[in-house]
């Protein structure tokens, strides 16, 4: 039976909350894609099996929750025992029996399963005390790792759809827009356009039909922010969309999500069905005049379809190519109707802003950049994963406090923010506050929130080459500066990597980059040369070393490096000889080996197996 008034919703909230809090203890098994890949489903099954036989006072299988991603995927599968917050990492199905016996029934802590702080080497008992989590500020990710992602009752139990109820019963659309505008919420997809302003423009365009779209086409390599939110807390996204639809006057909404995110699609579908069943989607929602429906569109995985106009063409069934946006899509968007398109994270922020008010939201973050931002922190840091921090947190805090510092204690070299078309920032920028404007000012960007940390073993030219290669193949190919310009930039960068480039080429790259930025049609081309421009800006010396000395200081560019045996160090163990797939190493036992340069393919297999570190790469 559907919910037909906000009063009924409140009653249901009380009922769900009672069920949610029925047992004093709760077991939380992270079932995000990362943990599932590591065997989280088997752990849930093991809990079911263990609890089927054994009766524990004040505990039952219902209190075992399959939640969304905690963000700490590299430590997965994760199991948390609430309310104490005992935090177990790398849990295997065989550990489950011990957890049931000792931790749940007995209240003990199982030492070997605890997380080890990589900096101090100490074991950490509670979730709240893990440095990866303590420095975070979770708003968009508020429900991840707390509620069962596929259960609408859990979402309602933690106050879900109360924001919608408040908006529908006590506010006018214009008041909602004012509220979002006041809160200073900016689009989390990368551009940082004020959401309230966007909604107001859409509402003020004269039209019979308007649309609301959620952009879940997350395409940056290594980014999984939107994915985790759609998988772990789909209802927040739906609620955000509903509030937006009410504000702008839309009756239909679309969620554009990648086909490669099967779990996100399943959970969103389930969430939409549950909402329809409970009357939260459909006609006359909560007994008001507001009617709204949501459909899911699955994208085939083109990076460019994350661009709004290309996305809309793709939803309409055409080739995913952007169009010129001299007339904005908020005025003429999907099927030429006014359309509000926001990112998953933006929508996830909306319900809680509606509940807590704009002042609360503005109190988090910094001026003109209120709230938080989710990042996927990856690369050469000790703790990698999904994090959410208040705007204005410095790169240093993110990398050293949350990330636990550089992996293997190597020196920090650069951090790449903003995905493939973002930029690389060097050590002097470490104290830069992370917000939309500061990042743009130094030649990088917020993007959707990728953050890749690099150490001294990373060659910046190679990094630029890698991202350009990605963009060359992901450009839609419609306009010349992007299609041909990025291709030529990639070719020129390749020449730097092989030592064929001249200093004139470097100038040519800079000049061409400027034209690509000015003349390209859409954001992909306009930001495409960013990785190149920012590395030339901050690491020009490294480019010049490649060009003048034909040398790669980080020992990455294959054409410019050689592998040789340091005779004094070599113990003659023959491990490298066995490892070399190209038969490029010869030598006898207990005598220094020799690498034949003409055969060496520079794959690095010998370095990986050499215990005494006797192979020199330079």
């Amino acid at each position, binding site marked *: 039976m559907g919910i037909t008034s906000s009063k009924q919703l409140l009653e249901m909230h009380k009922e769900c909350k009672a069920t949610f809090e029925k047992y004093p203890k709760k077991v939380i098994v992270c079932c995000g894609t990362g943990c599932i890949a590591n065997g989280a489903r088997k752990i849930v099954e093991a809990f079911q099996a263990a609890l089927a036989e054994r009766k524990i006072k004040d505990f039952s299988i219902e209190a075992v929750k399959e939640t969304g991603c905690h963000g700490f995927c590299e430590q997965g599968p994760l199991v948390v025992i609430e309310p104490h917050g005992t935090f177990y990492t790398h849990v295997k199905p065989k550990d489950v029996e011990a957890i049931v016996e000792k931790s749940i029934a007995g209240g003990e802590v199982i030492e070997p399963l605890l997380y080890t702080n990589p900096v101090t080497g100490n074991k950490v008992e509670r979730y709240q005390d893990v440095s990866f989590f303590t420095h975070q500020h979770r708003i968009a990710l508020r429900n991840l790792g707390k509620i069962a992602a596929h259960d609408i009752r859990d979402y309602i139990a933690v106050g879900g759809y109360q924001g919608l109820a408040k908006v529908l019963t006590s506010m006018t659309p214009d008041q909602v827009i004012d509220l979002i505008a006041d809160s200073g919420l900016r689009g989390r997809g990368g551009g940082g356009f004020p959401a309230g302003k966007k909604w107001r423009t859409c509402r003020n365009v004269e039209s019979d039909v308007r649309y609301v779209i959620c952009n879940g086409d997350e395409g940056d390599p290594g980014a999984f922010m939107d994915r985790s939110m759609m998988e772990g807390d789909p209802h927040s996204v739906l609620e955000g969309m509903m509030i937006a639809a009410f504000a702008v006057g839309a009756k239909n909404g679309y969620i554009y999500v990648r086909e490669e995110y099967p779990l996100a699609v399943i959970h969103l579908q389930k969430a939409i069905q549950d909402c329809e069943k409970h009357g939260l989607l459909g006609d006359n929602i909560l007994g008001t005049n507001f009617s709204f429906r949501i459909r899911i569109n699955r994208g085939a995985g083109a990076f460019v379809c994350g661009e709004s106009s290309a996305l809309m063409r793709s939803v309409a069934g055409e080739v995913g190519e952007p169009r010129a946006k*001299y007339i904005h899509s908020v005025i003429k968007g999907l099927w030429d109707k006014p359309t509000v398109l926001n990112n998953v994270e933006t929508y996830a922020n909306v319900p809680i802003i509606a509940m807590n008010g704009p002042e609360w939201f503005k109190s988090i973050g910094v001026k003109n950049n209120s709230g938080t931002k989710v990042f996927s922190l990856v690369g050469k840091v000790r703790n990698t994963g999904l994090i959410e921090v208040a705007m204005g947190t410095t790169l240093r805090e993110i990398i050293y406090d949350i990330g636990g510092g550089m992996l293997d204690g190597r020196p920090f070299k650069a951090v790449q923010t903003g995905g493939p078309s973002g930029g690389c920032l060097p050590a002097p920028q470490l104290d830069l506050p992370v917000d939309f404007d500061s990042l743009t000012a130094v030649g990088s960007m917020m993007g959707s929130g990728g953050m890749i940390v690099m150490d001294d073993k990373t060659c910046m030219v190679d990094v630029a080459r890698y991202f350009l290669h990605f963009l060359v193949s*992901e450009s*839609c190919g*419609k306009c010349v*500066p992007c299609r*041909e*310009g990025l291709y030529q930039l990639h070719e020129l960068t390749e020449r730097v990597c092989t030592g064929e480039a001249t200093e004139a080429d470097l100038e040519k790259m800079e000049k061409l980059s400027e034209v690509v930025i000015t003349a390209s049609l859409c954001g992909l081309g306009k930001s495409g040369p960013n990785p190149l421009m920012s590395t030339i800006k901050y690491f020009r010396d490294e480019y010049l070393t490649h060009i003048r000395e034909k040398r790669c200081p980080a020992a990455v560019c294959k054409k410019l490096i050689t592998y040789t045996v340091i005779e004094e160090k070599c113990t003659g163990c023959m491990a490298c000889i066995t490892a070399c797939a190209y038969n490029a190493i010869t030598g006898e036992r207990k005598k220094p080996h020799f690498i034949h340069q003409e055969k060496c393919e520079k794959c690095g297999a010998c370095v990986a197996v050499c215990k005494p570190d006797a192979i020199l790469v330079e």
Partner: protein
Amino acid sequence: MKPVTLTINGKLVRATQGEYLLGVLRREKIDIPALCHHEAVEPYGGCRLCTIEVTKPEWDGWKDYVTSCLYPAADGLIIQTDSPQVIEIRRTILDLYLARCPEAKLVQDLAAKYGVMKTSYQTVPEPNDCILCSICTRICDTMGFKAISTVNRGHGKEVAPPLDQPPDACVGCLACALNCPTNYIKWKDVGGTREIWGKKFELIRCEQTGQPTITREFADYLIANRNINADYFKIKDSAHRTETSLGLGKIAQWTREEVK
């Protein structure tokens, strides 16, 4: 239709609000290059050669570089069509084009006009004459067939029928090939058959001259959708003209006889 006033290269020009600037500029006899523009189809914004510089007094000196084929006219716009920056953009684009289509005469001539005689970049591994202007696919779309489209992404983009198979939707009208600015789309008419996009068509033969005319499929399309009499396609156009002139001859004769 609200009239607006623009300043183009220092001269005041009247236009209609919302009309695309390329039309205004060409009306003013200003030479703006464009390789993807075609009057029969919606503007595309692909070649970027028609890029111009626009600004407004209230923009505080900020200038934007926009494609005139898609930028709507608005009151107070100040336009520069050949500032050094604009020329630099056009030169670079033509330079890039030459690396992809070194043999295309259209590109060579336009590039030469801008002083680019030879590309300064690496010629692509498999150059061809397709400038990816998409005029062919847009004309096919506008005709309502959608038999061909651009396929693949990025530097591997090309024009092709779906799955590279002879397209079901193609009627052999040749609108794509005859409008291709570089004559890259290949087709042939041999002994009463036509071949294009790997698909073979039988041509209708003129009942009077026996010569092949258009494809059966195209004739059927025109009869069904463009309200053309089915008998029209039984003879070819030149035979129509012969018939008409013979008819006119007769009319002239009758008229003379009546005058007499």
